[in-house]
């Protein structure tokens, strides 16, 4: 299988009061073409910085980043973001407020002739189910619709790699699960390789082929959801996964109101995690 994204022992640091504070240290991972991977971890553990380094907004102290076999980042050498063939869906969606939905989606297609460009915009809007809303402006859409426009815009130039930063954090809890499966279907039908960052385990397990657990600036485990669940590498990871999935089970059980609810509720400690 082709390797689409390769992070080779990358380190990133920020200057803090004349010293440098490491945000990522010696992180490595490979992602095969067509796969969807998730970086999972508590907030502030450097997940978003990994995405920004891959996009070319953070310079590397050490290591190398390759996209589709091409070296794009190494200490002292950076390919500009616009030349990386990497797309990104931002946490706040970053839709251009002065452009209509169609113009937003077409923004990355300026080298295309007008005819094919319009056809491509139509196709993208069709894919995310917003064909009818092309002439509206971002502030006229709901949060879920904005998210889909952001996805269509990022997919339109057919990037080698798509980065998604907390794609569901701005949505209602009710909408999240539905949209997570929808997002997976869209990405798979478009045949894209994607790296998603989230702090929500349920989302990660819903969409990912591979999950990376990030703990204190490093990748603690990089595995399939099955492997992660059944063979956690460390007791901390086991605890992390158990606590979170317990919460998820409890929530579903409560919603369904079945007999399971009481049983799960009696299940004991660990109810203080972040859901």
């Amino acid at each position, binding site marked *: 299988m082709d390797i689409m994204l390769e992070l080779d022992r990358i380190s990133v640091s920020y200057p803090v009061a004349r010293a440098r504070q490491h945000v990522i240290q010696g992180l490595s991972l490979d992602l095969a073409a067509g796969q969807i991977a998730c970086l999972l971890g508590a907030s502030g553990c450097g997940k978003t910085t990994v995405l920004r380094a891959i996009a070319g907004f953070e310079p590397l102290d050490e290591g190398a980043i390759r996209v589709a076999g091409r070296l794009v980042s190494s200490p002292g050498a950076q390919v500009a973001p*616009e030349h990386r063939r*990497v797309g*990104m869906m*931002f946490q*706040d969606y*970053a839709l251009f*407020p002065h452009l209509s939905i169609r113009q937003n989606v077409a*923004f990355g297609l300026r080298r295309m002739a007008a005819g094919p460009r319009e056809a491509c915009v139509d196709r993208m809007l069709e894919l995310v189910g917003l064909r009818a809303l092309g002439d509206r402006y971002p502030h006229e859409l709901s949060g879920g619709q904005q998210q889909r426009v952001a996805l269509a815009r990022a997919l339109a*130039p057919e990037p080698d790699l798509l980065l998604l930063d907390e794609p569901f954090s701005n949505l209602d809890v009710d909408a999240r699960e539905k949209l997570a499966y929808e997002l997976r279907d869209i990405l798979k039908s478009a045949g894209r390789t994607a790296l998603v960052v989230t702090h929500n385990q349920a989302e990660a397990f819903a969409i990912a082929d591979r999950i990376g657990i990030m703990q204190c600036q490093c990748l603690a485990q990089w595995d399939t959801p099955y492997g992660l669940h059944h063979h956690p590498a460390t007791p901390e990871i086991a605890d992390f996964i158990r606590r979170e999935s317990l919460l998820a089970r409890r929530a579903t059980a409560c919603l369904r109101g079945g007999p399971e609810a009481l049983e799960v509720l009696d299940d004991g400690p660990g109810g203080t995690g972040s859901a």
Partner: protein
Amino acid sequence: MIRLSWSSRQQARLWHSGMLLAGLAVLAPVLSLLVLAVQGSPGHWTHLLDHVLPHAFVQTVILLAGVGVLSAALGVGGAWLVTAYDFPGRTTLSWALMLPLAVPTYIVAYAYLDILHPIGPVQGAVRWVLGYDSPRDFRLPDLRNLPGAILLMGFVLYPYVYLTTRSMFATQAASLIEASRLLGHGPRSTFFRVVLPLARPALAVGLSLVLLETLNDIGASEFLGIQTLTVSVYTTWISRSDLAGAAQIALLMLCLVIALIAAERQGRRRLRYSAGRRAHPLQPRPLHGAAAWLAALLAAAPIVVGFLVPAAYLLEQTVGRLLQEGPPSAQLLHAGLNTVGISLVAMLITLFLGLVVAWSAHIMVRPQPWQRALPRLATLGYALPGTVLAIGLLFPVTAMDHGLAWLRDHLGLESMRLVLMGSPLVLAVAYAIRFLTISVGSIEAGLMRVAPSMEQAARLLNETLNGTLRRVHLPLLKPALATAALLVFVDSMKELSATLLLRPMNFETLATWLYGEAARGTYEEGAIAALGIVLAGLVPLIALARLQQQTHHGHHA
């Protein structure tokens, strides 16, 4: 309880009548201008149409276009430089780029005419370097033409654009720019397709202020020999004693003003879009080596041209003059006292009217559309060029004088005509109309920060409307009132175009003193007067910088 609410309603009615009167005061000059212009004899009009208007109109439009383009380039360029990049001295420069605001257009023209005089220091130095002996062999291009006026005015007026666009850039979400980069647009394309369109509303606001200020200018155009509409109004009235003709030109200027305001409204449509709540702001990109020094140089250039050189010149002239001739003349000191006195009176009137308008608008319950438009109308005076306002005020003020005289005649008091017109009070009235928008704006912003629940609590504790204003709002409004007072005072000190036309005989302010000297070509004590105006203009800038520093530190805490 019933009695109490009744009295509050009466109080509210009083406030609203006050606002109506303020609105009329602003409208009166415009209406009287219309009447005056219509009365003009046809003979005059054809003379104006043939000989004065076309030339003055074209000169004015070219001046507006040139100053607009130059100040937009300097303002937007400076704002983007200090927002998007990090280089040595960035913090200082981002503050110092406001400094030219302290230099009125007529002072920058006054200073540069002397600095760049053929036998002045700069041309002398250039000749010395190039090896020429006399001004007849070599001289730099003359400043006294349209390009010279555009250059000088652009370099002191750009801070209006700089201030409005910089705050827009600072709040713009960095993710929008990053998204554009990832979608294949390089830095330049991103600037023109994302950054600039998003800053357009701010650019429209800043640019309209620049253009209104250009239209208002009388000193710089006259010193540099540009026959603009404003200068034509002045010469038609003062030199040719043709009031109707002057009113007709003023009316034409009013049309230009209305066009400008309409363009501004059009330009800031869809202002509603704002950055997302969680968006992180743009982080400046560090520059190194030559690029960093080039950036610092580019950001420093407008400050040097628009502030440092003229200010240093005025300081040097003032010190030299004081050392040689001793203390300034009694007349100049008197002009200084006049300036401070009339500015204080104008400040008090403006603050009072501002409070009336802002508070009345605040306490309106379910206002009619025309009632909601009143506060906006009352603040439109800022858009009236000083000369237009002066001509418009003639008729209403004289009418009031006649009314007062009639009253005194009937009361059997000693009759004295022209109480307002013959006294400096008319200046204070003109300043109040022009600068009312400043006080209304700051007081409205201050009122917005008072939680409605606080007001409701006071009312439920049996306090009347006026009592609530006195005991709750006024104490909380102190900072807003202080800001407004400072700004109105300084703007009144700088005012020249209305002052020239409306001042009583032998009443000099620092600005008219400077104008007189420059018009006569006698550079004597003008520099001292100019330095006084510039120093006064620095005070609000320093206060603003301190305020920004405080909020800056507040964010980090």
